[in-house]
């Protein structure tokens, strides 16, 4: 979306954000977690979760070889099973975008690049812009930027807004995901505020975490962000995507997240255009559960490729 430039002081906007009650949020989540998912609905959920994965490698030791292997897995999750989707995207550093694009040419799988001095975001703004431009010029379909958490915590909301809006401009047709690193933001009230701010500044997706800091995509944080998306949708009719990342490693938790989306946002969000999981190890647990649903037996982890 385009930034809302009619706002000049974001503290006015943020002061209108309703507070969030931690205990009430936990109770809402507990209700979702008692939902029972069985049979074809569970299979459908597992397939859906697989199709929403941003298969990720974000390490200092990443090499073209590693990235190419991951891109192959992105297309061939488990060829022994029928009817599996591919993942939604691969997520890499800007330097690996070219490699990933080449490996995924002629597929529908997107290439996402983390950006703006991921994961800490502690670089001059000019550097962040170059970081983003590099990724966009090499063909990134999606940009996962980090916000300046220090500026946000210091109350410098205009700075954070401007930064997001500027990166959005550089993205061109690439979709912008804004990472908050909620593990550094202290409270659900802050999560609600930063979500509202990022959406106003032009985020296409909001994303919990880098995966480098714990806690990451906890249920209360995700619920709070979904609520901010719902509020924006109710006000404007405009959908914003959601990407929890970090800490979602089991099929059970992933399915609970999808049930949360179904109830808080509605089924329109239940596809990879509007919902993603940032995860590296989740895929295999989903695959194992998928096989279990089909065959009635758990298979050894050795039967599922790690990369």
């Amino acid at each position: 979306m385009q930034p809302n430039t009619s706002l000049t002081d974001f503290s006015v906007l943020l002061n209108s954000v309703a507070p969030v009650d931690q205990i009430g949020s936990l109770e809402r989540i507990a209700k979702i977690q008692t939902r029972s998912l069985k049979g074809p609905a569970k299979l459908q959920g597992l397939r859906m979760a697989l199709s929403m994965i941003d298969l990720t490698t974000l390490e200092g030791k990443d090499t073209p070889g590693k990235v190419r292997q991951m891109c192959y897995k992105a297309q061939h999750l488990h060829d022994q099973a029928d009817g599996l989707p591919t993942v939604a995207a691969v997520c890499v550093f800007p330097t690996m975008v070219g490699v990933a694009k080449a490996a995924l040419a002629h597929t529908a799988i997107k290439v996402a690049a983390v950006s703006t001095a991921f994961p800490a975001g502690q670089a001059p703004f000019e550097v962040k812009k170059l970081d983003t431009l590099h990724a966009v010029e090499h063909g990134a379909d999606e940009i996962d930027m980090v916000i300046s958490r220090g500026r946000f915590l210091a109350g410098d909301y205009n700075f954070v807004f401007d930064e997001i809006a500027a990166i959005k401009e550089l993205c061109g047709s690439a979709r912008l995901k804004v990472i908050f690193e909620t593990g550094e933001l202290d409270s659900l009230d802050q999560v609600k505020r930063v979500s509202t701010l990022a959406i106003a500044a032009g985020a296409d997706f909001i994303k919990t975490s880098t995966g480098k800091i714990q806690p990451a995509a906890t249920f209360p944080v995700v619920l709070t962000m979904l609520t901010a998306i719902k509020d924006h949708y109710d006000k404007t009719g405009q959908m914003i995507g959601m990407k929890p990342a970090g800490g979602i490693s089991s099929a059970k938790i992933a399915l609970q997240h999808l049930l949360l989306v179904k109830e808080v946002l509605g089924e329109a969000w239940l596809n990879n255009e509007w919902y993603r999981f940032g995860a590296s190890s989740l895929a295999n647990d989903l695959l194992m559960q998928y096989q279990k649903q089909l065959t009635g037996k758990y298979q050894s982890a050795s039967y599922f490729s790690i990369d």
Partner: protein
Amino acid sequence: MSSTNWNLEPSLESTAVVQIKAQYELFINGQWQAPLSKTYFDSVNPADESHLAKIAWAQAQDIDLAVQAARSAYENVWSKLSGAERGKYLFRIARLMQEKSRELAVLETLDGGKPIKESRDVDVPLACNHFFYYAGWADKLQEAFAGREVAALGLAAQITPWNFPLLMLAWKIAPALACGNTVVLKPAETTSLTALKFAEICQEAGLPAGVVNIVTGYGDSGAALVAHPDVNKIAFTGSTAVGKQIQKACIGTDKKLTLELGGKSANIILEDAPIDQAVEGVINAIFFNQGHVCCAGSRLYVQESIATRVIEKLKFRLQSIYVGNPLDKNTDIGAINSKKQLETIERYISLGVEEGAEMYQPSCHLPAKGYYCPPTLFTDVAQSARIAQEEIFGPVLTIQTFRTIDEVLQKANNSPYGLAAGVWTDKGARIFGLSSQLQAGVVWANTYNKFDPASPFGGYKESGFGREGGLHGLSAYLKFIN
């Protein structure tokens, strides 16, 4: 991209764990005794109108036998035991209830229509906790009331409602036994089965015969129990109309009485509230147990500046409420307890429409058989509308707006009832300000329907008198000698 249809499949709790007998007798003096009149009534599963069992219908002579048994057990056995010994029995009962929790939960759901997730996660664990809690007090009564000398009352007659059959039994029997009384309990006619299962648990625990007697039947059985001259204490939970009859019946006697009656509790959302959690709280306050809750937050008051948003969010939230088979683990609203109650609720819904309020019900597929009612909201409701004044005891919420705190305080207190209230605000001072002025036995702040055995519960005005739970709940079953 088009939206995905992702519907949860039915996930039914197995009923294999319960064996319902074809016919149940009265539990008197530790034994199953047929009613002298040989009359029985049918118990029906409200979820599909199927027949569950035949249940003995106690008449005055049966009640007299039960009272005699309880009196004899009190004089000869129970009053002679030390508090510590009574406590052992209570702990044993609590543990047995825990062991049979799955069975009790399924039975409660079959008999009363409440969702299995509520009987499993709320009713049964809380009922066990009440026994554990009061078991701990049994040998500490002198310490509970320092400087006072206390003694048991003797024989307690207890009448429980159909909305929380086992839980209300626990609220009543646990403190009565802990304080040294013996009990004759009459469960509501539509929900006798868990009380009869409890009688089996008493047998299994080796509780001395006659300490607990369960007499099933209709209102006439309850009236005979209340009228019995050898009863020392009456505890009743149910409707205000019946409560008034009981109070009249006790005039001129020295029977000690506690009444926990109806309600029309106000749930108040101020403009600075955590709105999404308040909406969830409203859902919990009115749709918990199909709204068959005496303290249900059935009158919602929303500050006008946020009313549109709150109502919009409530309507959206109703779309993800599952109404249907109570044994389905995903069901949020189960079956209405009885045909009679469903008719009452439907009458009030029609009345609300006649009174000019705007009704909203989400589209939901209700099972073809059984007693079901979709969650229902009424907006544009006047304070003077009957749907805003009278207890409906169903999943029906009236919504009114207000401008100032003084206004909402007056409106909330403008009711013959005074059982509970909810306040939603981010400001602690407002919570204290409102809760000290609301005429309600319980005021919940930023939550609703929270129960704990250590916390007293009871009403103001026509919601009754006396407290159950906590230390207060002990004093209802004791006499203070000095």
